């Protein structure tokens, strides 16, 4: 299975000590001086050579055309190793390109299969995940578009080669590809807690987009169609993080002794770990179902994906909380590895809508819209 290959590859190339050296050497550098954390660009080249960027790209466009179920398994391993890379961002951008179904999108999908990386720039300054809430406006000038405004909470923008941006054109949304070094594009680095990724606010000022980089004239429909897959990918990352936190905390509860017993002997420790396992398994079962629903084009794909994201986010919040608490004093320190995963999880929980957001959407289908 792809998952097993991914696991042994990442076990070998990104053991926890290596991750720590890359991202957690000095808190003052990152948090006080706002310096970017390191990532292994050599490892990224190997990942590109392995073809992971092209997993979501169809064979017709030069990719591997892997099922989302298979991709979800791989991304779980990415989460389990907290891999700093533009892989998740690129996979998500490729789903939006795929659902655009235009020849312009095909060209970009081909480039991604060849190793280009991309990130979605679709949220406004308030961090809304309502796809129509867009902070960028577009106007036509000849056969070009000109963009103004800002797109925020752009994942791994400094690592990705290009941005896939939504912009309001009259009544509609358009999707276009913008190079980070295009004239009028400015990336402002967000200072974030998560040490394993970067995030940016992107300013657009008179940015010209040529016709071949306008991906979709119905960007809202494309993003909506891609959304279940995007939620699946981020849920898979969460599920991997969750499982790492569970296993690491279980190991600690087996080894650490207090009051002449292993920690895990005490039901106040054992029961929450079981509760975490139950919530993690719920999220994973819902994740695989959602991935399959996307793969077969089921009508239920969106609700299945929202269920998966809700369950994965809530499981993430719970196991993160317990992983720190049950490690005791050491769990609260910079020295202990658990905070790396705590922060990646917390970031993922919010990303593309937390549990409450997903359930608010699901409630409309299950219960009906709110009357007033």
């Amino acid at each position, binding site marked *: *299975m792809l998952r097993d290959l991914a696991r042994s590859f990442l076990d070998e190339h990104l053991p926890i000590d290596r991750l720590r050296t890359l991202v957690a050497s000095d808190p003052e550098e990152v948090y006080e001086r706002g310096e970017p954390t390191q990532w292994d660009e050599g490892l990224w080249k190997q990942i590109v050579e392995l073809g992971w960027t092209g997993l979501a790209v169809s064979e017709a466009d030069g990719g591997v055309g892997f099922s989302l*179920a298979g991709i979800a398994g791989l991304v779980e391993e990415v989460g389990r190793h907290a891999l700093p890379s533009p892989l998740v961002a690129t996979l998500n951008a490729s789903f939006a390109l795929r659902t655009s179904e235009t020849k312009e999108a095909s060209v970009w999908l081909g480039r991604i299969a060849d190793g280009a990386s991309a990130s979605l720039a679709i949220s406004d300054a308030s961090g809304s995940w309502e796809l129509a809430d867009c902070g960028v406006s577009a106007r036509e000038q000849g056969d070009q578009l000109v963009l103004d405004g800002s797109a925020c909470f752009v994942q791994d923008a400094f690592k990705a080669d290009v941005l896939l941006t939504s912009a309001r054109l009259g009544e509609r949304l358009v999707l276009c590809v913008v190079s980070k070094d295009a004239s009028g594009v400015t990336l402002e680095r967000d200072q974030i807690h998560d040490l394993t990724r970067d995030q940016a606010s992107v300013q657009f000022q008179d940015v010209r987009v040529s016709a071949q980089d306008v991906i979709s004239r119905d960007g809202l429909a494309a993003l909506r169609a891609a959304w279940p897959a995007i939620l699946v990918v981020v849920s898979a990352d969460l599920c991997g993080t969750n499982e790492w936190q569970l296993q690491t905390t*279980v190991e600690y*509860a*087996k080894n650490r002794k207090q009051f002449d*017993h*292993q920690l*895990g*002997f*005490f*039901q106040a*420790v*054992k*029961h929450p*770990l*079981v*509760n975490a*396992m*139950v919530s993690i*398994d*719920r*999220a*994973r*079962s*819902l994740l*695989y*179902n959602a991935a*399959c629903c996307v793969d*077969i084009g089921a009508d239920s794909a969106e609700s*299945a994906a929202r*269920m998966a994201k*809700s*369950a994965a986010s809530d499981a993430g919040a719970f196991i993160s909380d317990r992983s720190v608490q049950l490690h005791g004093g050491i769990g609260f320190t910079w020295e202990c590895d658990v905070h790396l995963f705590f922060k990646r999880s917390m970031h993922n929980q919010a990303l593309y809508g937390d549990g*409450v957001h997903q*359930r*608010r959407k*699901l*409630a409309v289908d*299950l*219960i*009906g819209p*709110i*009357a*007033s």
Partner: protein
Amino acid sequence: MSSKKLSDEQNEFQEYARNWLSKNMPPPPPVRLPISPIEVSAVEQLGYLQEWQLSCYRAGLIGCDYPTEYGGAGRTDCQRLANQELGRAGAPYFINIVGLSMAAPTILAHGTEEQKRKFIPGALSGEEIWCQGFSEPGAGSDMANQQTFAEKRGDEWIVNGHKVWTSLGHFAKWMILIARTSRHHKYDGLSYFLCPIEGHKGVTVRPLIKMTGESGFNEVLFEDAAIPDSNRLDEEGKGWTVAMTTLTHERGAAEGAGGGGGGGSTHPLEQLIDLARKSRRDGVCAADDPMTRDAIVQQAIVSEGLRQGNRRARVPALTDHPMRIPMQQKLVSSELVQNIARIGVDIAGAQSTLYKLDEKAPNGGHWPLAYMNSFGHTIAAGSNEIQRNILGERVLGLAKSK
């Protein structure tokens, strides 16, 4: 993950089951049915449910995967399809839940040829109701602490003791009984019997009244009750091992995994949503209240998670421990039932103070009764605290709590 492709036999059987159910669903019951078979207390309910079980058995929807010589249909991996179709059709549950889901699989695994031929057909057809004699007043979740004693006299065992929480004991012809046969060993001192109950000398069944004021389960007293040695299941002293087989089936039985169980006639989540639409809280429709909506959707996600977990459990590569998901089912499903009922109580608000005989009680007083009854699920078959210990120890490998 897509489930494995169905075999030709399974495809053909699924179509047959669907067809049969579309033509043979029973008429509405003569009296309202309780939430689950273990609360059935009226003979009208019993008669209706036994007739339905028998009719499904004759149609081959029960015991699908049992060998034909023991009254089964001799098919391969068809019971879960039958259960799915029963659930989809909204069929009533099967009354003989202990017989179907616990006694029959345990006898199949541990019984002699004669025992299998004698006991399994009646359990599957529902003609012989079974109950379970595991719990005792002094041994709740600590099941190895059994005090009921069986003493060998000739080719008989003479039983003295006291069992409690015996669901369906008032209708039962047989009991799966665990009793101490040696005082010198704790686990190895237990044996497992198939004990006659109905009208049997030395056996007294007394109804116990639940906190809801309803009966539904019993205590069973044994005073020099004789069981022939031919009714001993497996070897003397092997009772604990045999009981583990039963418990594995019992704890997985929530989803009908134990070879029967059937579909419930009620879909609690839909009922809950219906209640929310019809109720008002603080002057607005309860279905418009964001907290209520979130609470309902949370349970919908748990419910779907349970369903998808059952599918995932059939693909070994998707978990690191074969029992990791199956052993969670009792814990999760019982708390799901409890949480749904609790939300129903909250939505009904002041109206949930009303007992079922008060005409103003919404849904005939269902919600508060369902909530109280739900503790039968979170305590029975090893309380959920015990389930968490088992999961923590056997699946996560944590140190044993004593």
